[in-house]
């Protein structure tokens, strides 16, 4: 008997098709069929290369961890987040406001100072602050903002995570709300004082998690660009992990990140005399 079999379709597809298929699968998983927007290019090769789609995915929730008690002594994580928001506002000039829910209960670290945020390039006209009484209210406000089309981004400052306490459902809910509306969310929190192990990691459903801390500036003394040490701790579909912290500078004028190399400016450790080369201009005001 001579039965002619119908041949199987070509099993091996071209790499480009695989990418398209993966995109299709992702879309089906999300269930809404919306095409994912291209990510937000950060302008710094080291970070963009690690991120999927060559930039920070929008319409997702990102978590930025500062060092322990960072709001009290170290504003680096706030600075980095402000820089991301400034970039995002620049990229989407016609979209709505940024909703920022600060942790006002803790005034030890002072209150947000808009002139400083504007100095980092943030468009303060598009900033709306939402004061809340506790973290539950902050998460409620964040979720409301994340599910509102027309909001550009929403940010909530959260408390440090207690060891062993995980809240997967909140994270998943926030992420779903962000995906549905296309609003980008940011969670800003200090790392727990002691542990940095898995127990201290709270939201497992965030799109990416960053660790930011202050870094000694290797720049010329006149260069006022802030420098931070940034580490992409994890990202979904990341192309590469930057396991090593990477030092980046933020240019508020041109709204771009750049990697900086070199040793920090010499610190005179053996004498109390500082290496003061600051520009000594007097701004006679008032």
């Amino acid at each position: 008997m001579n039965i002619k079999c119908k041949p199987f379709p070509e099993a091996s597809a071209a790499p480009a098709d695989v990418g398209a298929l993966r995109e299709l699968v992702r879309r089906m998983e999300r269930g809404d069929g919306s095409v994912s927007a291209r990510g937000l290019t950060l302008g710094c090769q080291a970070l963009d290369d690690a991120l999927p789609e060559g930039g920070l995915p929008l319409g997702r929730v990102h978590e930025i961890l500062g060092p322990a008690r960072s709001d009290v002594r170290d504003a680096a994580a706030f600075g980095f987040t402000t820089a991301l928001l400034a970039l995002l506002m620049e990229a989407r000039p016609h979209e709505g406001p940024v909703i920022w829910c600060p942790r006002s209960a803790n005034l030890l670290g002072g209150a947000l100072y808009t002139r400083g945020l504007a100095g980092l390039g943030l468009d303060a006209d598009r900033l709306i602050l939402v004061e809340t009484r506790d973290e539950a209210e902050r998460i409620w406000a964040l979720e409301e903002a994340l599910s509102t089309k027309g909001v550009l981004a929403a940010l909530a400052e959260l408390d440090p995570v207690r060891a062993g306490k995980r809240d997967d459902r909140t994270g998943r809910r926030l992420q779903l709300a962000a995906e549905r509306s296309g609003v980008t969310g940011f969670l800003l929190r200090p790392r727990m004082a002691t542990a940095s192990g898995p127990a201290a990691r709270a939201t497992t459903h965030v799109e990416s998690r960053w660790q930011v801390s202050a870094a000694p500036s290797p720049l010329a003394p006149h260069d006022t660009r802030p420098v931070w040490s940034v580490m992409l701790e994890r990202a979904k579909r990341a192309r590469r992990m930057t396991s090593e912290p990477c030092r980046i500078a933020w240019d508020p004028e041109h709204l771009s990140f750049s990697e900086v190399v070199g040793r920090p400016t010499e610190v005179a450790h053996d004498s109390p005399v500082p290496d003061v080369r600051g520009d000594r201009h007097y701004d006679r005001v008032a």
Partner: protein
Amino acid sequence: MTVSHENSPQSRRILSLWLPRFATERRDIETPDGRPQVLTRAERGRLVLTAVDGHATAAGLEPGMALADARAMEPDLVVDEWSMEADGARLRDLARWCLRYTPLVSLDPSSSCVSGTIGGDAGVWLDVTGCAHLFGGEEAMVADLVNRLAGLGLTAHAALAGTPGVAWAIAHLAAPARGWCVVPDGQERAAIRDLPTVALRLPAADVEALERMGLRTAGHLMDLPRGPLTARFGIEPGRRIDQALGRIGEPITPLAPPAPHRVRFGLPEPIADREDLAHGVRRLLARMCARLERERAGFRRLRIDFFRADGSTRSLSLSTGRPARDPEALFRLIDGKLDHLDPGFGVDVMVLEGEWVEGTVSHQRDLAGATAAGRDDEAVSALLDRLTNRLGPTRVHRPLPVESHLPERAETRAPAQSPARWKTAAMPPVPRPIRLLSRPEPVAAIALLPDHPPARFQWRGVDYRVARAAGPERVAPEWWRSGSSQTRDYFRVEDDEGRRFWLYREGLVERGQAAAWMMHGLMA
């Protein structure tokens, strides 16, 4: 004197409500006690009765007696100190409850609980012009008011007449046994003719002087020629007669001016169920929103008063960021607040008032329905309303610049819907911190030379070693403000781990003043 004036058709209808024993009866309602009760206050070194209740009156006590005399007549007395403030507040509650009949309600300023005179009585005016038909006529309305108050345990006398003066006189001096009476339009003169001169609300000294002249009734006064009357007793008696007869107006000042956007929903039976209340709110909103649709306006702030059967009111208010007239959206904002509303034994009247109504600009609609941008704007605006209504009006805000060189004065906050102003603001030439301490904190610092930045410093018990510093930036105090501080030299300082701070030195070191170092903020 012309008679035709007095008989001219009167348009106003005023209800005067008098509660002769308000001060004692409201205490009886709150803490019932069968014994005679009196209220006292200290006067010229002795305690004097200011108010007595029914039992005490029956025992022969009256306001103005000394407490010692009263005890001699009736040993078993409950004595309490009179508080005009507390009675006044209760009277205002009662007056608010009277808003169920008319939006124009005011307190009688001459009554004891408002003016602080002895007596313990209270009075309320209601301008019920054009309201009576809602309650089945004037008689039915006055009877309803008196019966409801009697049901609460308050003795109430009410009179309805064309002028406040006549209504007051009848309620105080000539109320029939059932407690209320209605003076038909145009009968004012006849109604007060035979009443004593006190009915004209004259001061006690005037009444006494008139009495000495044999002028005992209001009719006597009205019959006198005006010239000699004024020459002898001043302008007051003539003015009061004119007010009573409606020849000159006597305005009553309402507690709250009525809003032009007001709808009322009266119920045959009190309701307390949350679903029923929600249904009532929906009906009010639907009616008012239909009207706003015609007027092309929307609510910015609205209030719903729930008049409870027990004689008190509860209110809900709501504000929105832009004029809103979508009944469903407004209902969603109110819905959550209904949970906290205590209906007591039931609510029988609900009134919705638009406290702030603003015209709307309608959006250009495209063929598909609405523009995408307009839809997004509306969604953001609705979000801000949701946040504001749940968190509180001051908690959702936008920062705005203030033209000041002092960093702590350089920005303020405004409601989130206010226009943005940062584009035009003058920005400082050098970086500012992104977190500013609410008040600068003293820092122990060591500087190499007096006018140098610090080499190391101690803040909140932690030592920092300075690696880089920039500055100074001099900020002079605002001498035109009192309590201004000293001149500050600001430095941006980075420690050896890269943390950046904003410190300043207070005082002019070059003039030999002592310098103090302060921490003011955290740089990015």
